[in-house]
């Protein structure tokens, strides 16, 4: 066992983990953060996407020990004060999901995309969520949701500036 100290969704944790424990299993099974799901288990589908020190990663392809000293944000940590994150709201309003299984990862990947490119074209959105598979929607409403969130988030950022 190896001891890790990690911040997850704003709270600090100190835990013993086996080096082989994947970050997604640590989040779900040790911390109970079951909002992050396991999809394909082969690093393809992106359902388990979280932010590690602010960047999107597939948490099935990171060891929990590698998060030692780092900050992890999951789908459970992005709403503030009971208010959905603008990206969550946009997925809701634009029907960017059907079964919802890809949604946690899709939202985390989309937030990462807008951080690097606040006003993406449709093509750039599709490239930005290339690592996240949705087998229901055909992506059309997902792209619309990201576009709505981009509009909301950049106007909020503008108001704050």
């Amino acid at each position: 066992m190896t001891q890790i100290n990690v911040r997850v969704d704003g709270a600090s944790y100190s835990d013993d983990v086996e080096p082989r424990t994947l970050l997604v299993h640590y989040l779900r099974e040790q911390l109970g953060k079951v909002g992050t799901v396991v999809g394909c288990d082969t690093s393809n589908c992106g359902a388990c996407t979280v932010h590690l020190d602010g960047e999107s990663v597939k948490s099935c392809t990171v060891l929990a020990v590698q998060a030692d000293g780092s900050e992890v944000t999951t789908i459970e940590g992005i709403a503030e004060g009971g208010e959905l994150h603008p990206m969550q709201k946009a997925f809701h309003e634009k029907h960017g999901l059907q079964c919802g299984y890809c949604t946690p990862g899709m939202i985390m990947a989309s937030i990462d995309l807008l951080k690097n490119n606040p006003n993406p074209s449709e093509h750039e959105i599709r490239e930005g969520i290339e690592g996240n598979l949705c087998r229901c929607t055909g992506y059309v409403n997902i792209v619309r949701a990201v576009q709505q969130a981009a509009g909301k988030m950049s106007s909020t950022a503008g108001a704050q500036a």
Partner: protein
Amino acid sequence: MIPASFAYARPTTVDEALQAIAAGGDDVKIMAGGQSLIPVMRLRLAAPETVVDLTKVAELRGVREDGDSLVIGAMTTHTDILRDPLIAQYGKLIAEATETVADPAVRHRGTFGGALAHADPAGDLPAVALALDAEFVIAGPGGARRSVPASAFFVDYLTTALDEGELLLEVRVPKLGEGWGVRYEKFNRVAQAWSIVAVAAAVRMEGGRIAEARIGLTNMGSTPLRATATEQALVGADVSLETVTAAAAQAAEGTEPSSDLNAQADYRQHLARVLTGRAVRAATGL
């Protein structure tokens, strides 16, 4: 799926890493970004005794210039490459290929050196390194350094010149500045897929003629290959559709690509010719 148990070392310097590799027993795996190794371990296709994780070895990360060369640290992530101003100026072929690697989340973790040391024939960076005549700087047990040219680095399927106990430190590539045109032309069928075939082309033009041509082929054999016949046909030729088309028709000469569920060997050879034509036309502005 969970990997088999292993001992884990997380060094912070090259010296510590070499010691951890030496002390790790008979079956040590060096982990760079882990984006290929962790999946393989999860599937239990690899079950190393020790994993030496390089993610905290800061000295291996970053791009610098040294005279006419760019020196790329092995732990420079794909995302680092895409944001690096020196790469943007002198390493556009590397940037074009890197952009096509997997997806953004994988590019945040995956590294330049890791992708080269993994040496997957369908990986995008080996053919680029070969086309650029990259030099691989390697540290051995005890810290001894040696340098291996790309032509000798890629030995076979998933096999490189790296010996047991050795560590890839950095990769030196020539700066491609004024006069060079480049293109990485990749063929695959679905998002985030590996190359069925891809072509890396860098061409230097001088007064309407081609002065130098470097063409690397991805997934046309167990290692990356140079399209030597095409390169020879291009050098000295005028920049015209006719000469480029004739040269590209020789791109698959001497290759023995594999047949698999994505493509038969003869289709791969067809792709190599077509993609070489596209890549060279784009590189020369035709």
